[in-house]
């Protein structure tokens, strides 16, 4: 009996030592994290370009999971709501408002790593907060804007306007210039359904959320913005509703459109590359007009509360967001710079004078609409029907307000709307 007991004790000791050894071995294994990002050919490539050097310097292995925008949004949300924890650090923006509660507060990390120093003024404040804590870190800011053929504007003696009213009154003249050069006046990715709100946001400066915290468009301002859109649509290329983002960009790059309404970061690098563009040295980014708030695409990195390696995830964010990468990512991929030093670099500022000033201005006035994914999707589809002429501006606004009245505004977006003046006063 004593012998048997001794044997069992011995086995238990061996098992305990073994499990400790295995634990040590596990602890010695380098940390690995997964980063979800949009497969845009820019953000994903930029992340991939620093992956190896990051592993060498930190020992952290990063898996980059890149998806098209809609799939990325879906995968991130599903991962959080099912508590899967597949993605440690996620790319997203305000449309993830429904799941903000699943991200960790980054306040401590930001203070510890002194992140945010040197960023464009106000950029950190434009990031997402939940219950007063910052949950998103900015990377790759972009503001919907208009690229135009500066050479043809100069030839015709046309100045870039400063208000939408001036721009609209200039459109007949711009059409003449475009026709004379055998090109379309305006190119826009009307075939990408989620892009439809871009035309509206930059002309609308009303509220999205009422005092009693319900979604609602300010009817008079919304109708006025849509009526202006109607005029713009009549100057679009006849097939604009079939153009994807790449198709619309290609049209401008190929010298077949006078103006391109776009996300600049998807096109500026190519526009300055003689291999990819026929408009090198001929284009400029226009300053956005008043009234309205250009659609801000402030990609942010969020750390999932299900991440087993939040510290490693934050180190990855720090590796991605720094002054050196800011410049190289801009030059290589066209990703919008977010550090003041990039804009203050004399050589760069001179080389990119056709873009920098307008870009900085556009960032400063751009805003994320305080809309949840569901609210924005419905709005985008309604705007699609409006663009097709199936409904009037008035009907569109009524239809949207009616549907929005049935939706709940996520708490995080109410704070955002208050901060950015998009809530009824």
């Amino acid at each position, binding site marked *: 009996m004593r012998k048997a007991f001794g044997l069992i004790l011995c086995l238990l000791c061996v098992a305990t030592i073994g499990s400790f050894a295995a634990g040590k071995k596990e602890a010695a294994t380098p940390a690995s994290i997964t980063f979800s990002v949009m497969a845009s050919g820019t953000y994903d490539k930029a992340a991939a370009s620093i992956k190896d050097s990051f592993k060498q310097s930190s020992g952290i292995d990063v898996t980059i999971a890149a998806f098209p925008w809609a799939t990325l949004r879906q995968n991130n949300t599903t991962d959080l709501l099912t508590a899967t924890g597949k993605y440690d650090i996620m790319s997203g923006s305000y449309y993830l408002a*429904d799941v903000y509660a699943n991200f960790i507060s980054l306040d401590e990390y930001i203070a510890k790593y002194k992140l945010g120093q040197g960023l464009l003024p106000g950029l950190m404040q434009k990031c997402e907060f939940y219950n007063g804590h910052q949950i998103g870190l900015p990377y790759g800011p972009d503001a919907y804007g208009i690229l135009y053929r500066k050479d043809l504007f100069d030839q015709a003696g046309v100045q870039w306007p400063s208000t939408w009213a001036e721009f609209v009154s200039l459109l007949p003249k711009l059409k003449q210039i475009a026709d004379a050069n055998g090109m379309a006046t305006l190119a826009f990715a009307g075939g990408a*359904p989620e892009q439809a709100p871009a035309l509206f946001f930059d002309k609308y400066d009303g509220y999205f959320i009422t005092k009693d915290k319900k979604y609602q468009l300010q009817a008079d301002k919304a109708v006025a913005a849509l009526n202006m859109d109607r005029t713009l649509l009549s100057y679009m290329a006849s*097939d604009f509703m079939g153009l994807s983002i790449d198709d619309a960009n290609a049209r401008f790059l190929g010298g077949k459109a006078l103006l391109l309404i776009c996300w600049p970061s998807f096109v500026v690098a190519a526009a300055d590359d003689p291999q990819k563009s026929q408009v090198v040295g001929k284009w400029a980014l226009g300053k956005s007009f008043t009234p309205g708030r250009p659609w801000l695409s402030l990609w942010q990195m969020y750390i999932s509360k299900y991440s087993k390696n939040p510290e490693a995830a934050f180190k990855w964010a720090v590796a991605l967001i720094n002054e050196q990468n800011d410049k190289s990512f801009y030059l290589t991929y066209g990703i919008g710079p977010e550090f003041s030093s990039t804009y203050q670099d004399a050589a760069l500022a001179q080389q990119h004078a056709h873009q920098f000033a307008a870009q900085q201005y556009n960032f400063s006035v751009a805003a994320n609409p305080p809309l949840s994914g569901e609210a924005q999707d419905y709005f985008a*589809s309604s705007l699609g*029907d409006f663009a097709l002429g199936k409904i009037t501006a008035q009907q569109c606004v009524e239809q949207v307000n009616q549907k929005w009245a049935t939706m709940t505004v996520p708490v995080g977006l109410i704070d955002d709307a208050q901060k950015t003046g998009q809530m009824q006063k």
Partner: protein
Amino acid sequence: MRRRNVRHEVGALLLFPLPAVIIILVAQAFPVLYSLTMSFRDWALASSLTPGGFVGLANYVKAFHDTVFLHAFAVSLQFCVAATLLEVVLGFILAYFTMGESRALRVARTILILPMVIAPVANGTIWRMILNPQYGLLNAILSTFGARGPDWLGNPVLALVSVIAIDIWQWTPFAMVVFCAGLSLIPPELYDAAQVDGASRTRVLRSIVIPYLVPVIFIVLLFRIVDTFLVIDAIYTTTFGGPGFSTNVVTLYIYWQALRYFNISFGSALSWLISILTLATAFTLMRAQRRLQSSIWGVTQ
């Protein structure tokens, strides 16, 4: 003693399918019944990790007042009717004209069923490229004839026509294969007798082929009606429901509600509405088949 042995054996035999029964109950019956109970509760996963309280028929009532759902239902109906009818007719024509055992006909049949074996998502992606107004193959072909191709996926009417055409292209082979099987079961003596009687090809078709194929036609109709009403992949990959709401079908809307916005209860209610409708359609078709067959043959099969 013997009776007890038999009982014992039956009991032991019943144990064999038990694991399979348990798996089916857990994997199929439980989720289905759970979704039914959820449809009577208030649960949006984004707001709460646990289901909310009982709300009775509120989600079902909401569905009937939801303009997007009602519009999506109308689009699904158009899709279902147009695609099913054309697939059945074209499938029958293809089967009828490729009937036979010659090498050429066998090769033709093999080629014709190829679209069916392509993954629907890949199929949609290929078609999106073919239908691209600028660089697409279809408009390139049209331009060689001097015609300017339209914006297939950007125009609301053409977009719906396009997704219907994609479904027809992919699933007509299914109808063809089933019709081929049905045609091969018609006794050859009937054709011989018809020939002796001097029956024309049209008469053979009307009096022999179609009556014999009635059960097959109903099977194809049943499968295609259910399948086209629940279409999602071709639309997800080509138009994503657009432009505007023009190709937004019920399945896409249910997918958005349940798995994109995580409105689990409302999504469940919509799913149950559509399931009930498709089941009702299936039963109606089966009854219609029995009636038609008894009127043709004078007996109920």
